[in-house]
């Protein structure tokens, strides 16, 4: 498999130069490599997406997919996994999508630990609705709905995922395709809920490229099994752009835990292949 095998003929409607293009490439490269390494099968890949700029990726990757509703990529991904645990399930969300509309799903799925990979395109703004603040926009962010600047500090999704019990927590950068591809591969290979936050500057409404260029560094040698250290590391950057703080990318945390699917003895088989023959008299007999 090559990247182009995952291409579709659909017209790309991201803005010219949008870092989402980098994510699109990195995902395809990660998938192609995993297929070539015999770790996954193309026909068994299923993706879900929410609504927002990120979700356009549904049209650009030639795999089975479910373009859901705003904020709901995660429950849809969970449902796909329930229905067919053999599938390699990738969810795509935006920051407004995942942390505003879909926050409950995010927190609970970090706990559920179903074997799905959640990639959040974090541009720290609602862009498709023309630039409003999201939960990860920095304090003071000026947008159409916050003309005098956002009043609150942003949430920290890395810290939140850790606190919520996620078993794989990572951050990468849309403009570092090699790092991003490697991170996505690791996330897919992790058995459990893998959360990858992808910093994805919006070149129209929130151009953070200059800051990231100067402040991003790759994590190396950090103890990814030490929760306290991971949590401490997650606080290094507070999602603001005026404190000259370093922004780490890489895996913060990874541990093994039983998955959501492990709860069910029979799971391992897709539902659609189950031939259900019910003994009606036996079932009805219960009420006699």
């Amino acid at each position: 498999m090559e990247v182009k095998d995952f291409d579709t003929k659909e017209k790309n409607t991201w803005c010219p130069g949008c870092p989402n293009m980098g994510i699109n490439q990195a995902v395809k490269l990660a998938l192609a490599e995993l297929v070539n390494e015999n770790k996954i099968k193309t026909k068994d890949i299923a993706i879900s997406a929410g609504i927002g700029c990120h979700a356009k990726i549904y049209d650009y990757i030639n795999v089975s997919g479910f373009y859901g509703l705003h904020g709901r990529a995660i429950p849809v991904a969970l449902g796909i996994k329930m229905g067919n645990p053999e599938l390699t399930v990738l969810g795509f969300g935006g920051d407004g999508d995942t942390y505003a509309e879909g926050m409950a799903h995010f927190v609970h799925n970090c706990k559920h630990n179903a074997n799905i990979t959640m990639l959040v395109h974090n541009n720290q703004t609602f862009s498709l609705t023309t630039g409003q603040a999201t939960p990860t926009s920095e304090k003071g962010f000026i947008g159409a709905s916050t003309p005098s600047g956002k009043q609150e500090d942003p949430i920290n999704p890395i810290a939140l995922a850790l606190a919520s019990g996620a078993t794989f927590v990572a951050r990468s950068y849309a403009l570092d395709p090699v790092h991003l591809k490697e991170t996505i591969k690791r996330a897919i290979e992790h058995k459990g809920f893998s959360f990858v936050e992808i910093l994805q500057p919006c070149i129209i409404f929130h151009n953070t490229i200059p800051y990231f260029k100067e402040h991003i560094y790759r994590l190396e040698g950090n103890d990814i099994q030490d929760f306290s250290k991971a949590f401490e590391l997650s606080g290094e950057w507070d999602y603001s752009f005026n404190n000259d703080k370093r922004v780490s990318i890489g895996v913060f945390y990874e541990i093994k835990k039983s998955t959501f699917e492990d709860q069910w003895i029979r799971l391992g088989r897709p539902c659609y292949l189950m031939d259900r023959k019910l003994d009606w008299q036996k079932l009805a007999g219960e009420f006699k």
Partner: protein
Amino acid sequence: MKKTILIGGEAGKGSAVTSRFIGKIFCRLGYYVFNYRNYPSLIRGGHNFNVLEISENPVYSQGEKYDIILALDQKTIDLHQKNLKEEGFILGGADLQSAKLKAIDMEGIIKKLEGPRILENDVLIGWLFRYFGVEEKFLFQEAEKEFGDNSAIIQKAIKEGYGMAQETEKIKKNGDGNYLISGNEGISAGALSAGLDVYLAYPMTPATAVLHYLAKKEKEYNIIVSQLENEIAVANAALGASFTGAKVMVGTSGGGFALMTEAISLSGISELPLVVYLSQRTGPATGVPTYTAQGDLKFAVNAGHGEFPKVVVAPGDAQEAILRTEESFYLSAKYRIPVILMGDKHLGESDYTFKELKNSSLSKERFLLNNPPEDYRSYKITDSGVSPAAVPGQGPVVRATSYEHDEYGHTIEDAETTKKMNEKRIAKNKGIKKEVEKLNPVMLYGKGKNLIIGWGSTKGAIVDALPRLKDFRFLQISYIVPFPKDMVKEEIEKSDRVILVENNVTGLMGDIITEQTGLEIKEKILRYDGRPLTADYILKAVKK
């Protein structure tokens, strides 16, 4: 033989279990039982009661006047004695006060048994069945069947009560044993019979019993039952599972249904099958959580933004709950649409008796292609509007989307495709209508030139009232979408007097009838105090 027995006490003191157990024993003896539950939203204390209607002949509702009151506390007597029949009596502990009381030395018995206070229930059961001349041995067997390992002490308590009573009204065996089943059990059994794979829910009275029942059956039937973080997650995850070809159902009441409506719309455009069990309770908002109503009819009919085909069906008793649930799965899978299966607290939590329990002969297939072609189109335009379905994992790329799309499921915004896809989806209505016509969308009971119209759980009270009403037929409307308008119109037009009976404030079915047929029903019997209709209530109102 016809008896109405009320069993009351504080929450947690056993009145619901006792009532069902007594009902089961009568069923086993071939009698017909209707068991009505009334309880407030609290866990301990308060006042719960059940009304058991017992008869040699089929019965589908509870009476308002009691032959016997089994009192677990003084409150039961204070609240319900006024409805005790002249010749009726109350059975309870010697500490209770009433001129009608047959007192049992509960304190003494409980002390002797060295058991928990809740055994009072079983003492009452023993006494009651001695009164009716039922063999002690039979009661012990039933107790063992019902309570298993706990039955030894229960049997002892039954024996104590049995020993204190005298055989007074000996009842005969009334044929073979009957089935006793609640509406919620009917929904659950119907779902299992339809081939359910996944049931998702967030707890909400009065739908919760389905979640509990199916969760208990998870291993036996190899199904997935899961409680997610909220109804939004429930409905969206259900569609995720449906996308993979799983047969899914979600269950909730009005408040949870409100949260699910975005997914009903999503089911409509993504064309993914979804069965939604909506068990109504008294609204609006939190309303009266553990009481009944039929106030969500138009909400269900109109649920989901945008226009898309859907089905709304309302069973009238537990047997119908089984069949209508199976029909819901069938229609949903075949036409790839959302189906809303409407019940309410009264249907869901009441126990009904049947001689036989039937399941449906409808196909249980998944309606999936065995070998989808490589150039598979998820939204292929066909005359029927139904695109042959494939699922991820079979081979080709399969797509589902909330966005308007072309045949492959790719996003579009152009006028021509938008129009075509709307027409494709709406075209399904034709096939659905034909199909529903074969599924008894309306049922007619009795004979007469006057007509009562009802839907859902009011069926029981209406059917029980009918023999006592002169010259009345009863038209039960079970399919609301698609609406069987010709049949309804015809019945209304050939009747002299037409009365609408509903458990709501404004007569919602009346509005739908007017919208669909142009006919207005002026005479309405509406009950909206959270309590179900009874035959007496209807009789009084009709005669006014």
